[in-house]
């Protein structure tokens, strides 16, 4: 606490990396940022970046920025994963690998934190921004400026997490930082504070996004789109955002209490002094379990879109699907205790939570059967998004069985915190969330760039991911049954685990090749963009409104706001066109769209200062950040000139141009 008065808080030169491995990490971060800056200067793209992207309030632009950041973070956390596997493959018996135990622990803590908060969440918010407004026939989200703030808070969180590589260190207490290990007494460095503040800042961004998207879905649907006519992706986003709104405040408060413990000597979760560490574990999972469904519901929505479109059929069991989503939403708040049956709560409590957990398998199973029956009697186009779907069903079913096993408390006693558990949740999150978002990116890519992704490389990437995944995680299931716990930086040779860790390491390597192939796929597709150009705006023979616009989608989305009277409105429109039904003449009307604003960025920067100041106990920096953020908000609140006007004739011209002369895309 005393350091708060110091000008530099706890900051000093000693906090720079001291050993070669951490220095390498720091050099990569600094070098990467410098390389981007140099490239932008060399190609004279700063102004373009600022005007077209950073200050944009267009949800499509914000969506792309989310996805770009998430992909960079995927690479970073992927490297973390490779380092962990390399350590575990080499640290057996008398050999101790190349990482110290503390460094190893920082790496897995960072891997989990980044993958969940900055990869999965980033991809999710990115996709929602891109797709959801278009699917409901809207030009924008309900609160475009709030959307920008949310993105920049997310980005500040990203910066804080990665800054820990350069100055100080990251938490070594696992991705959920259970006390008392994460308390000051056992984790005296700044690592846990970095963890707390990057999640505080990003978490508030998530909450704002949740409110924004929920409001958008409720209030901004186009004419005729009743709730039961919404695309399934929109339903799943609605479910997920409801969860965000209820769950994220719990996270924010829990982290605050932990920070109070660490910084002001309070005793919410300490061992002794009246603290109760199990209260933290309860609270963090009261957020944490819904969080799993926050990530996976939109991915379920993606699969619903992909399967219906690529099977050339209506989605099977629409009403069941909607009920299944809301059953999952409700149930996801009733199962948190299954993450710690081993706390010893007693048979009644464990039995209750075991049963509620299993019940979730019912709506999830219903969804799987409905997808399968969507394919039944369809015409299935085996394009990359469909492959991701098939991979998802295979892995998700296996992971689901593992989940049912873990839901039985006495079985959980034998599997909890073992690598079996690690394999289970990776199966669910990689196949469910990541494969879902990969399918989504491939599927919607032409809509936002004007050209399709290379199919052949997409296929290679899929097979690398699938085979790599099986090799990387089937050994972990077996290792769990062999008694291998998670987070071990070293083990004895007599355990017999070594060969399996080697196989797992090879699997991780193949996944890395898959990820590299995907990056190559994007580059190759940009180079060959003329060959892959999408002139129709409807490359998949789509069913929902976004496909009715030209590709890339114009900044106003729809020149004329659509009116719908059925579930797959664009499909219906196309059927009607075939029947040569008469078109009504196009009537253009003037529209208003939000102007660019840089205030979101400023708020992001000020929030970063608050976080950084709080991590290093620099009081004046926190105050500057707080005053800056609040006054930025005030300035924006009193700005009247926030919208740009597009007249009907202008719009008509733009629309005509977009439809007859599709651009090559952003690239």
């Amino acid at each position, binding site marked *: 606490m005393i350091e708060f008065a110091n000008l530099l808080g706890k900051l000093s030169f000693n906090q720079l990396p001291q050993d070669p491995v951490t220095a390498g990490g720091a050099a990569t971060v600094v070098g990467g940022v410098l390389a981007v800056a140099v490239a932008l200067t060399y190609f004279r793209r700063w102004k373009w970046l600022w005007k077209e992207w950073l200050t944009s309030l267009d949800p499509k632009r914000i969506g792309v920025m989310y996805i770009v950041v998430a992909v960079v973070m995927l690479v970073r956390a992927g490297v973390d994963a490779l380092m962990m596997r390399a350590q575990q493959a080499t640290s057996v018996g008398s050999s101790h690998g190349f990482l110290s135990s503390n460094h190893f622990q920082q790496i897995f803590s960072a891997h989990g934190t980044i993958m969940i908060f900055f990869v999965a969440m980033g991809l999710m918010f990115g996709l929602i921004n891109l797709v959801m407004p278009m699917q409901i026939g809207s030009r924008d989200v309900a609160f475009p400026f709030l959307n920008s703030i949310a993105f920049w808070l997310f980005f500040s969180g990203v910066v804080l997490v990665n800054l820990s590589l350069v100055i100080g260190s990251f938490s*070594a207490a696992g991705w959920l930082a259970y006390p008392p290990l994460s308390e000051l007494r056992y984790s005296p460095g700044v690592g846990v504070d970095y963890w707390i503040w990057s999640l505080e800042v990003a978490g508030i961004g998530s909450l704002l996004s949740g409110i924004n998207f929920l409001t958008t879905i409720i209030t901004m649907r186009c004419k005729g789109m009743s709730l039961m006519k919404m695309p399934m992706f929109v339903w799943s986003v609605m479910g997920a955002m409801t969860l965000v709104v209820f769950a994220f405040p719990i996270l924010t408060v829990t982290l605050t209490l932990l920070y109070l413990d660490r910084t002001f000597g309070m005793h919410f979760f300490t061992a002794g002094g009246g603290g109760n560490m199990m209260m933290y574990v309860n609270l963090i999972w009261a957020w944490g379990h819904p969080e799993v469904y926050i990530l996976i519901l939109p991915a379920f929505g993606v699969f619903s879109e992909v399967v219906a479109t690529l099977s*050339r059929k209506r989605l099977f069991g629409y009403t069941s699907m909607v009920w299944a989503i809301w059953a999952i939403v409700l149930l996801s708040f009733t199962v948190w205790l299954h993450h710690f049956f081993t706390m010893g709560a007693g048979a009644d409590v464990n039995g209750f939570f075991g049963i509620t957990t299993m019940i979730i398998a*019912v709506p999830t199973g219903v969804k799987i059967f409905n997808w399968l029956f969507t394919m039944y009697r369809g015409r299935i186009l085996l394009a990359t998004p469909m492959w991701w779907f098939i991979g998802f069903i295979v892995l998700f079913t296996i992971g689901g069985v593992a989940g049912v096993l873990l839901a*039985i408390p006495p079985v959980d006693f034998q599997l909890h915190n073992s690598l079996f558990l690690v394999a289970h949740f990776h199966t669910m999150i990689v196949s469910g969330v990541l494969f879902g978002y990969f399918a989504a990116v491939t599927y919607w890519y032409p809509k936002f760039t004007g050209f399709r992704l290379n199919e052949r490389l997409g296929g290679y990437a899929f097979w690398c991911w699938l085979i790599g995944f099986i090799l990387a995680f089937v050994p972990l299931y*077996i290792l769990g049954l062999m008694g291998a716990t998670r987070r071990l930086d070293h083990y004895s040779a007599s355990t017999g685990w070594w060969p399996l860790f080697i196989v797992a390491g090879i699997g991780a390597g193949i996944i890395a090749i898959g990820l590299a192939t995907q990056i190559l796929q994007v580059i190759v597709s940009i180079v060959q963009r003329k060959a892959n150009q999408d002139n129709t705006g409807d490359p998949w023979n789509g069913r929902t409104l976004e496909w009715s616009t030209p590709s890339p989608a114009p900044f106003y989305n729809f020149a004329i706001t659509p009116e719908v009277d059925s579930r797959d409105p664009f499909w219906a429109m196309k059927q009607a066109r075939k029947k040569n039904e008469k078109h009504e003449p196009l009537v253009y009307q003037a529209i208003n769209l939000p102007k660019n604003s840089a205030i979101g960025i400023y708020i992001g920067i000020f929030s970063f200062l608050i976080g950084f100041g709080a991590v290093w106990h620099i009081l004046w920096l926190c105050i500057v950040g707080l005053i800056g953020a609040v006054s930025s908000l005030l300035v924006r609140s009193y700005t009247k000139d926030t919208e740009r006007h597009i007249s009907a004739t202008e719009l008509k011209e733009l629309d005509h141009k977009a439809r007859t002369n599709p651009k090559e895309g952003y690239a």
Partner: protein
Amino acid sequence: MSKNKKIKSGVIVACIIIFVSVAVWYLIHTNIPVLEPKGTIGLKERNLLLFALALSAVVVIPVFFMLFSFVWRYRESKPKGKYSPEFDHSRPIEALWWLIPSILIAILSVVTWNSSHTLDPYQPIASKTPQMTIQVVAMDWKWLFIYPKQQIASVNYVFMPINTPVDFEITSDSVMNSFWIPQLGGQIYAMPGMFSQLHLMATSQGNFSGSSANISGRGFAGMTFVAHAASEQSFLNWVKNVVKTPDHLTLSAYARLNRPSENNPVAYYSKPANNLFVGIISRYMSLNSTASGNNSHSYNSAPTTEMMQ
């Protein structure tokens, strides 16, 4: 299929077969503790696991069958089945897959409820042999086992007579850990200021490895111990030997042991201090102490019965 393609797929299939056979051979010759339990609780937990796995197959097999056959039959490049683009719901079919998983889950729920009670780690194991108490303290980064009746203690080594139910009483004098001997049965958390219980019984002789399943800091990976199970007679002999150990686990010896250490070797003590275990717990329970390494005060305050539950 062209000749080239045939060779290619032949090679792939051969590689998969070789890989799988090597894997199976390896797994057959490896000890998989959770699946090859040597204790009553572990055995029941294993059987429960296999039962749930079999029950899941009722759903998994149809899902896989439907997935692959539908993809094959209705693929656009070579479709075989009918095309019904408007076929989008069917009450009876949907009712079926709300119903079948519900029935399975209902069966599993009954099993879950019952097994949660019969295999409750706090539940003593029914046996003709009277149960034995071993107190377990998770420390940075080692395990201390106190035998209150035998008046001995050991570090990273626990000896238990076979076919004797053992009541492990567990706490931590540091952060949270999890006490796990996979071959004997499931784990439970070791928490500072709290008391948890785990009943296990070894049914055959052997050395079983145990560890902490919950991350606890720098030396966590080295928090392994051996659980040795042998006959009652050899247990008594062992106790006789350990009792003779000159190192008494006095409060000051305990304070020395309590200093953080990694990969701690096995150690033995005799005459553990009175109420040592209860004292360790209550140290974290007082409101005005944060148990910040202050070991000087005596361990006399016994916890209330409420706390012991």
